[in-house]
Each structure stands twice: as C-alpha cells, then as structure tokens.
C-alpha cells in the first residue's frame, strides 16, 4: 500500500537536474580545471615498493639537481613541520603525511618532488635513492591476528589494536534453548567504488597571515578538519578548506585524501609557492583506500519453525597499515542495527580491529553495510537451508512486525517507521516472484544451474557523529564527554531584486543536491525552482560548517535538505511579516505562490516577491518594528534522536532507517563459470522521495557497484604484500555489458523524525546487491562458502572442482617458492660449445655484463658477487634498476645457482635460479628454472604481462650466453622468431 507522501509543486517530482547542462556541455569545472595562482608548482610522490621495510636512508641530491626541480621533501621535513594525525584509539601507531623510518604498505608515500610541471616532477622521482631493509609483512587478517605474527606497529605489541565485546538481551539463554544453531563464517573482500576523478589538492601557504589556503575535492566529514589543522600546528581558521561545486565521484573515498592535504600544505610552505598535486589511477588504486575486508563468524539460535531468537557476531575488520580517522567507522556505523530487518532481541557482538600491511581502509559507500549484510543475510539463507525451510519464509517469520514502529532494536537503533511485510509482499507481487520460480524450475529441469536469492537491508542514514565512541568503554566515554548529533547547515539569501540563492554543506559528488535544494526552497517561497541559483562550493573561512559537514552516510535528504528547508522557512517568515506590515493583514494569513506574496483570504492584496525582498535591502526603515534588515538566513538542523551511546552500550547509530528488499534470479554457466543475472528486483522504502528521478539514480548506481563487488572487483595482494591490481585491467569495474537494468519498486513511509519525511537512499543497494547475488548463487549451486567476487575462474573451480593434474611427463619441477607476484618458469637452451666454454663465459664479469639483458654496467663487489645497472621493461613501462647478483653453489662446469635482487623506481624483485650444464653431442644442453617475487609498480600494473616478459628475458639471457660463448657479439636485435612457427608446423606434421 502506498502511503500518502508530501508532494509539493516541485518536491516529490522527477525534476531534471540543474547541474546537468554545464556537465553535458563540458563546461563544469572539476577541481583540476580550477584556476591556479601564477607560479604554481606541481608535485609527484615517490611510493614504497615494499609492504614492510625499514627506511635506511633517502638520498635526494641527484633528484634536486634535475632541471625544473624546486624541492624534494622526505619524512625528515614532515616531522619538522607537522605532528602525527590524531586517531580514534590511544595507541602508539603514528601516521604522518610521509613515511618516517618505516614503510607499512606498498604505495605508502615516501618522498615528494615539487617541480615546474608534473612531467618533470615524475621524472625526478627516478633519481631519489631510497635504501630499504625489507621486513616480513602480514597481509591476511586472520594471520595478522595470530600470536607471533609480524607486527605492523611493533609499539602496539599486537596487530589487534581494539577488541570490544557487547551483549544485548539474554543471548546465552536463547542459544541454550535453541532447536538448532546455524553457523557461517564469511570473508568479505577488499574493494572500492573508485571514483573516476582522483584526488586533487592545491595548497597555498600564505606567509603574511600564516594561512594554509587549500582547494581540493575533499568530501568531508569535517571531523577531519581538526585532525589536519592539529597536524599542521595551526588553529582551525588558519586551515582554509575550499571545495568546488563539481566533483568527479566520491563514494566516501575522497574523505581519505587528508594526508595529502597536509603534505601539500607543508610542500607549499617549504617552497613559498602554491603546490598542486593530481593523483593518477595507479596511485588511486594502490594507495587511496579500500573498504575494509572483514571476517565475520556469524551464528543464529533458531527454533525449528525458522524463528531466530539470538545472533552472535564475531567480526575481524582489517584496517590495513594505519587507522586513519574516522576509522574504524565501518565497524561501528551500524552497530545499533546489527540485527538488520529482524525482530531479534538477543545478540552478542565481538569487534576486533586488526592492522595488516595493506593500504589503509577508509570510507567507501555503504561503510560497513556490505560487510555486515553479507554476514547476516548469508546466515539467514543458511538458516533456511539447514532447517529445510524456504528462505523467504524464514525472512518473513523474523521481520520486525508491522505496527511495532518506532522500534528500538536491541543494540539501540530507533527504527522510526516502516512496513516491511507490505514491502516484501509488493516485491513478490510486482516483481513476479512466481514467474521467477517457474524459470528456475524450467532451468533446473534442463540441467542448468539457476538460483534465486533474497536480501533484506535496513538502510541507515545521517550518521550519529557519536557512534564511534561506542568503541570506547563506558568509563572512557564519561571521561571524554558525550558525542552525538549531526549538525547540518544551509543558507538561503534573497537579493535586492528578488533573486534567490542557496548554499549548503553537503559537498555533492554527483548526487544532484543543487536540484533538490532548488525544489525544497522553491516550494517554500512560491517561486520557480529554475529561478534559484545554488552554489555548492564550500569554504571553511566563509561558510558555516560543522564536524558533520560533508557528503557521506546518505545525510543529504535527511540533514542538509532539512537545514535548507529551515533557512527557507526563516526567509518566508520574515517576508510574510514584511508583507503583512505593508498589506495590513496578519503575517499568518500571508501566502506565497507564482512569485507573489499575498493575503490568503484576498489574493488581490498582493506584492511582488521581489518587492518584499527588496524592502529589506533598500529601505530598512520601512521594515516592521524590531526586524533586522537584510534577507539572508542560515538554517541549522540536528535531530534530537541521535543521542550519545548509553551505559548499556546501546547506540542509535543513525537518524533514519529505510528498508530494502531484493530478489535476484541468476544462472551459472556450467562450462565457463560465468554468472548471468537473469532478473533483479529491488524494493525500497526510503520515506518521502524528494525527487524520484534522482532517487532511482542512486539505486541504479548502487546496484551497479553492487554487481561489480559481487562479480569482479577486488584489490589483490601477493603473500608478501605486493599490490597486484593497479590498473583498470586488473581491478575490473563492470561495464554496460555486465550491469543489467534492475526493476525498482518503491513505497514511501515517511520518516516522522525529519520535516521532509525523507530517509536516505544512497547506500541501500550497495549493501543488498552483493549478498543477494551471493544468495542466488548459493541457491543455484548449493555451495555454502561463497566468497566474492564470483569471477568466472573462481566459480568454475567451485562448480567443476579442482583442475585435473597435468598429464604425466609435463609435470613442472618443484621450484623456488615465491610469495608475491611470484613468477616461476623453466626452460632449456642449446649452446654449440663445451660446458667448460659456457662456464667460462658465465663466471667472467665482462662477458656476464653482455649476457644479462639490458645491463649497462656490472662491477664485482666480492667473489662471484656483483652490482649491476639494468634497464628492463614490461609492456610499455621501462625503468632503470640496480641489481645484486650472486653466483653460488658453483660446481664447475656442471651447475650453479644465480640469486639476487633488483631495485628501482618501478619496484623491486628477489629471486633465485638454478642452471645445469650437460654435455651433449655438438655442444651443451643448458637447463634452468627460476622463481622470483616482484613488488612495487611493476607488479601493480604489469601483472598480466609479467610471465611473458620473464620468459622473454630468460630466453634472451641464454641466447646471449650461447652467442657469446660461440665467440659472436650479441646482436643488437633479436633474431627473427621463426622457431615457434617452425615448431608448430613440425608438430602438425607439415614441416620437418
């Protein structure tokens, strides 16, 4: 049943966006297109190739000598000019804007070059020499949590830096009395919605007033502003943060750019000129942030009929190498609503926060929701499977009953309104579940793998700014003082000619906030939404802001839009008083419509909107007695319901709670493992929809990312911490061919807690989609442990079993174990010379220098131990490396071991190879195998090409060895590769 929603002339209508024309014409100014002050310099950042290493020394002299380079900063300068960032926990785990003494993840900023342009700055990075002492790294969250694991922050004594236990109701009794306990452990992967526009920071230190003037696409929350100003050792107003009206996507991720803001501030102060930095894609994927990967052990106490009486959740959330504020938000943001859409009164939660040698975790759309609902909704599916019930029946049996709103969840959420049964019934009916079930039956009858999944999500919006204090004990909270609320600001101004302008604190990243603000204000003031100008830029020195300012937790429609409503109502009240004064009627009898201000009883008595507003500007003396002149009003809003946590650790983590119910039908291709989403129905109750066109846009977009998270997106690390997904060819975002169009259904149960009745709508689908797809996959295949992303090779392995072993005779020999982007290979070569002759070449440094591909210099540093300079390339990427080469276990002229390492701006490598020489007729048969690890940039961008490149380099090595031993000079170009073609023809019996 659709409830009556508040619809105005503009609010509630699918109005086209006011933002679009400049974007479609290419005239919208994104941060990198904003004007810069003359003299601006450009920065490039040198990043760690190691997951964990001590920094022994950094030599910047040669980089500084490069033409166009103005400065090179390292941790030393950062330590002089700043303090470490404040963090949520009192733990010795300092983070600065550049690494100091130690690097803790691949991609960590180590040095910054400031130069006349970005090309020159990037070139100069190659000339910075950093000596590292690599240390053991820990990558897997479970391993990191174990006793004896390598420590990311040794001073903390453990990688588990926070552990809290919570208990609500009487879970022990419920579990003791359960008919069955259903248990499941899930691993949610590391991913990110990766905005197409990366971070942009322009910092300009103004010596005269000691102000850091920053323009960036930072998206808030401004809880981080004090973190930055304290790091810079200045008072808040001395850090001016400005942001443009247009941003190329945020999804939470542009919160985590604050270390770069501080870094560029210091760079600007050091060079006395403005400094600009634009992040590139490799930097973004490697080092921006990721949503935390999480392990959840989930248990449900169940009755035979499917009624769940209690939950136990043990969460291990991985924050990577540093805990950047406001982390660990994703672990606590939904604490009050961990029971989801279900009426379950008993629950325990154990939250453990673990550090690993990966990129720090941060805010990513959904902010803990995709992880939590993956655990909860997979568990509910397992309850049905293990009790032999229909998953939909189990869901319906446990939903919060209609009529019990406002509902206080056991962990503290105040779910203010809803009717979940009606929403589910609507989805079943309008989503044609019967038809979907018939499709499943038909497919299964034909032997195909087809499944149906469901997911229930309660979508929180407008975060309680005090939820993070739940991580502290009651005593600690008492000491620190209560934290709650979420303060929103907007201004509405009417100029002397009646022109209306609006500003607001929501820092939009593409959601269309200006459009909705126009709608809200237009309805209040009786003017056309198209006549309103919204300026969505923000400037902390001139505009009102709070710690809550920013674009996150779907706070716009329930917070910022409400503050604009308040500001518009203030303007309206003032204008009504002026009009009443002039028209001689009571102010409460004044109406606003069609650009007129009039007496409701006698519309003939009216004034032009512009005339009324003009009075406040042109002739303050004609205003009603006591009224302040001017026509600019600030609206402020924070709902009283978002209180600090209580002494029982209950917390109303958000102001509003919407409802999402999804149904997915999918088919799994038995041969390829490819998943085809056949139908997807997503049902939303987000309260009043302020603009249905934009609301649907949020759902389609959230669904699109949910499909990516379910099927293809994952940040992949090697065991040694090397980062292996540094391009969009490795980190696979879904395209129009992968994302089908879902069917959207709406109902609108207004929120009684927000004056517009709206809840949030930006995040529900990113929480529901991954688990709904996983549940459908589980239904199709019967598999319990479903790990995302469900890419074809993983699915194929799951449904077809392990690949059969290699046929006999082709088995690969055991080789050196590798741990990173590990490359292994083997081969053989024939040299028409005796083993003794080959051996002589191998141990002669001059000849060895010619044998090693790309070697420009080789010098002995000890017996059979060399230092060399090489130039090597992978695909289009070529770089200089310094190599250490040691020959050992030399058994002349039979066998030997070559080991060593490479280090350069593109990354580093450690490896070992075995060579054996065997005299055969006419010469020597050389057999070799090798295994080596690669980390740094090469591993991140070149993963797909490395195997081939390694084979080519090895082949070159032995070809050169052969030709040099024969006494010929190494040819500049490799001989034409006729051999494989001939071999193929030979194999086919066509040639001999």
């Amino acid at each position, binding site marked *: 049943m659709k409830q009556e929603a508040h619809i105005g002339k503009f609010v509630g209508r699918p109005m086209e966006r006011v933002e679009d024309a400049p974007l479609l*014409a290419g005239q919208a100014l994104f941060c990198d297109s904003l004007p810069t002050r003359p003299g601006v310099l450009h920065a490039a950042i040198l990043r760690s190739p190691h997951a964990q290493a001590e920094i022994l020394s950094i030599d910047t002299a040669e980089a500084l000598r490069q033409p166009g380079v103005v400065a090179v900063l390292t941790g030393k300068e950062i330590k002089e000019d700043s303090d470490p960032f404040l963090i949520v926990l009192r733990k010795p785990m300092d983070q600065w804007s550049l690494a100091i003494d130690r690097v803790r993840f691949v991609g960590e900023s180590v040095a910054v070059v400031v130069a006349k342009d970005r090309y020159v700055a990037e070139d100069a990075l190659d000339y910075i020499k950093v000596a590292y002492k690599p240390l053991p790294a820990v990558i897997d969250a479970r391993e990191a949590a174990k006793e004896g694991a390598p420590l990311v922050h040794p001073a903390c004594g453990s990688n588990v830096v926070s552990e809290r236990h919570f208990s609500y109701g009487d879970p022990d009794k419920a579990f003791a009395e359960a008919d069955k306990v259903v248990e499941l452990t899930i691993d949610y992967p590391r991913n990110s919605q990766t905005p*197409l526009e990366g971070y942009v920071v322009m910092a300009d230190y103004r010596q005269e007033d000691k102000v850091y003037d920053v323009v960036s696409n930072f998206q808030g929350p401004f809880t981080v502003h004090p973190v930055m100003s304290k790091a810079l050792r200045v008072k808040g107003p001395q850090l001016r943060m400005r942001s443009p009206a247009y941003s190329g996507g945020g999804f939470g991720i542009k919160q985590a750019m604050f270390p770069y803001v501080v870094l560029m501030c210091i760079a600007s102060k050091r060079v006395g000129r403005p400094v600009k930095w634009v992040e590139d894609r490799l930097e973004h994927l490697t080092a921006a942030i990721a949503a935390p990967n999480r392990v959840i052990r989930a248990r449900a106490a169940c009755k035979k009929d499917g009624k769940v009486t209690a939950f136990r959740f043990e969460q291990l959330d991985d924050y990577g190498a540093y805990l950047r504020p406001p982390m660990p938000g994703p672990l606590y943001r939904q604490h009050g609503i961990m029971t989801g859409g279900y009426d379950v009164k008993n629950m325990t939660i154990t939250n453990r926060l673990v550090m690993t040698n990966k990129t720090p975790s941060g805010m990513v759309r959904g902010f803990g929701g995709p992880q939590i609902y993956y655990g909860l909704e997979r568990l509910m599916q397992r309850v049905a499977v293990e009790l032999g019930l229909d998953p939909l029946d189990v869901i319906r049996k446990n939903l919060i009953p209609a009529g019990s709103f406002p509902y206080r969840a056991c962990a503290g959420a105040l779910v203010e309104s809803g009717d979940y049964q009606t929403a589910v019934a609507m989805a079943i009916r309008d989503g044609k579940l019967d038809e979907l079930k018939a499709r499943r039956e038909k497919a299964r009858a034909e032997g195909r793998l087809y499944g149906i999944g469901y997911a229930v999500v309660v979508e929180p919006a407008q975060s309680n700014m005090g939820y993070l204090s739940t991580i502290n004990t009651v005593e600690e909270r008492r000491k620190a003082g209560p934290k709650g609320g979420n303060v929103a600001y907007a201004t509405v101004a009417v100029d002397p000619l009646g022109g209306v302008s609006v500003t607001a604190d929501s820092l939009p990243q593409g959601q269309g906030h200006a459009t909705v603000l126009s709608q809200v204000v237009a309805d209040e003031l009786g003017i056309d939404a198209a006549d309103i100008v919204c300026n969505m830029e923000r400037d902390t020195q001139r505009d009102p802001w709070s710690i809550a300012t920013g674009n996150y937790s779907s706070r716009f429609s329930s917070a910022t839009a409400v503050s604009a409503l308040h500001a518009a109502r203030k303007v309206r009240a003032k204008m009504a008083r002026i009009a009443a004064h002039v028209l001689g009627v009571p102010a409460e009898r004044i109406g606003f419509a069609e650009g007129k201000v009039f007496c409701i009883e006698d519309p003939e008595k009216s004034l032009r909107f512009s005339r009324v507003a003009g009075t406040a500007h042109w002739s303050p003396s004609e205003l009603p007695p006591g009224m302040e002149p001017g026509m600019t009003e600030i609206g402020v809003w924070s709902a009283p319901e978002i209180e600090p946590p209580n002494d029982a650790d209950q917390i109303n983590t958000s102001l509003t709670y919407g409802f999402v119910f999804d149904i997915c039908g999918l088919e799994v291709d038995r041969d390829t493992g490819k998943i085809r989403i056949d139908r997807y129905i997503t049902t939303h109750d987000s309260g009043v929809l302020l603009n249905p*066109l934009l609301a649907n846009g949020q759902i*389609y977009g959230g669904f699109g990312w949910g499909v990516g998270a379910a099927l293809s997106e994952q940040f992949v690390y090697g065991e040694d911490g090397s980062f292996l997904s540094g391009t969009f060819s490795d980190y696979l975002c879904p395209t129009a061919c992968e994302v089908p169009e879902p069917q959207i259904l709406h109902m609108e149960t207004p929120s009684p807690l927000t004056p517009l009745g709206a809840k949030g709508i930006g995040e529900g689908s990113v929480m529901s989609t991954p688990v709904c797809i996983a549940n459908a996959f589980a239904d199709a295949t019967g598999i319990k442990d479903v790990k995302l992303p469900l890419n074809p090779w993983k699915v194929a392995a799951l449904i077809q079993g392990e690949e059969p072993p290699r046929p006999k005779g082709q088995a690969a020999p055991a080789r050196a174990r590798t741990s990173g982007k590990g490359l292994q290979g083997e081969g053989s070569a024939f040299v028409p010379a005796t083993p003794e002759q080959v051996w002589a070449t191998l141990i002669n440094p001059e000849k060895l220098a010619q044998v090693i591909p790309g070697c420009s210099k080789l010098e002995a540093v000890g017996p059979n131990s060399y230092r060399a300079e090489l130039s090597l390339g992978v695909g289009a990427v070529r770089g200089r490396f310094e190599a250490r080469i040691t020959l050992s276990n030399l058994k002349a002229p039979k066998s030997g071991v070559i080991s060593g390492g490479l280090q350069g701006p593109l990354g580093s490598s450690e490896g070992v190879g075995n060579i054996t020489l065997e005299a055969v007729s006419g010469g020597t048969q050389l057999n070799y195998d090798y295994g080596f690890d690669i980390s740094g940039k090469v591993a991140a961008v070149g993963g797909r090409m490395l195997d081939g490149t390694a084979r080519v380099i090895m082949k070159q090595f032995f070809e050169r060895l052969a030709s040099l031993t024969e006494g010929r000079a190494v040819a500049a170009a490799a001989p034409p590769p006729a051999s494989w073609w001939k071999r193929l023809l030979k194999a086919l019996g066509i040639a001999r």
Partner: protein
Amino acid sequence: MPQVTSDGRTLINFILNGKPASGQAEPRMLLSDFLRQVAGLTEVHVGCEHGICGACTLRIDGEPARSCLTFAVQIEGRRVDTVQSLLGPRGELNDLQAAFRKHHSLQCGYCTTGILMSATAFLEKNPNPGEEEIRDMLSGHICRCTGYVGMVRAIKEVVASRSAKSKVPA
C-alpha cells in the same frame, strides 16, 4: 616539417571543433594534457591514463580516440572534436545531450563527455542499433555512478526520434 622550439617543443596546428588552433608541446606530451593545459579545454577529463576508462575520449578526424593514449604531436593537421562540437550555435544542448539530462544518464558527469563522443560517432555509423549493440558500445567506458541505465534509455530514445525524423518526407 614540424617546427621545433629551442626547448624541444613542437608547434602543433590542428582543427579544434571546427576552428583552426595551435599550441606547443614536447613530443612526449599526451593529447589529454595538451588539450587541458595548453589549449585550455575543460571538457577533456582524465580518468585512468591507460586507455580503459574512456573518460578522455574525443574524435580525431571523426574517429573516437583516447586522448590519454595519443601524443599531442600526432594531431598535427588533423581535426579534433570534443563535446563542444555537439552544441548548437547558441550553446544549446543537442538531442543526445538533452536525452542524457532527461533520463538522468549522468551523476558526477566526469565520464559523460567521453561517452557522448563515442555515442555520437557510433550513431553516425550505426543509426539503428539494438540495446545489445548500444551496451557493447558503452562497454568501452566506465561509469561508476549510474549503472548505465539512463544512458541506454537516452540513446534508445535518440535512435527512435532520429529515425522517426528521417522518415518524415521532405
């Protein structure tokens, strides 16, 4: 012969959105950087700099091209069209742009200018594509905001309205 300045930059003459234009660039300068930093265009958006995301797509002699995979010196004497080329004489949006607005085909809008260039070239060659072909064309681009639904709808609508127009007897 290309003209090379004393600091190694080359003078590049080309046709930008129908008008002669020129600028200097080092041989290694990317076309995307050249158009943004030298020619002063705001509509070329750089998303990945390795040719996957498609945000920087424009047309060179009519063919869609990634400006991040093209060197500036490669456009000497050639025609470069950006999204500005779609606008009417008074700067008004064309039918495709208007359809994008109507169907909420963009959110942050960062990928949009590139997609419009691919779609324009695609529709010139293939005025009556089916949805599958439209999606195949769009798969050369990454959009992180919209789930592509609005774009597919907008392009389908433009296909229908253009084909209805072309059937009207003169």
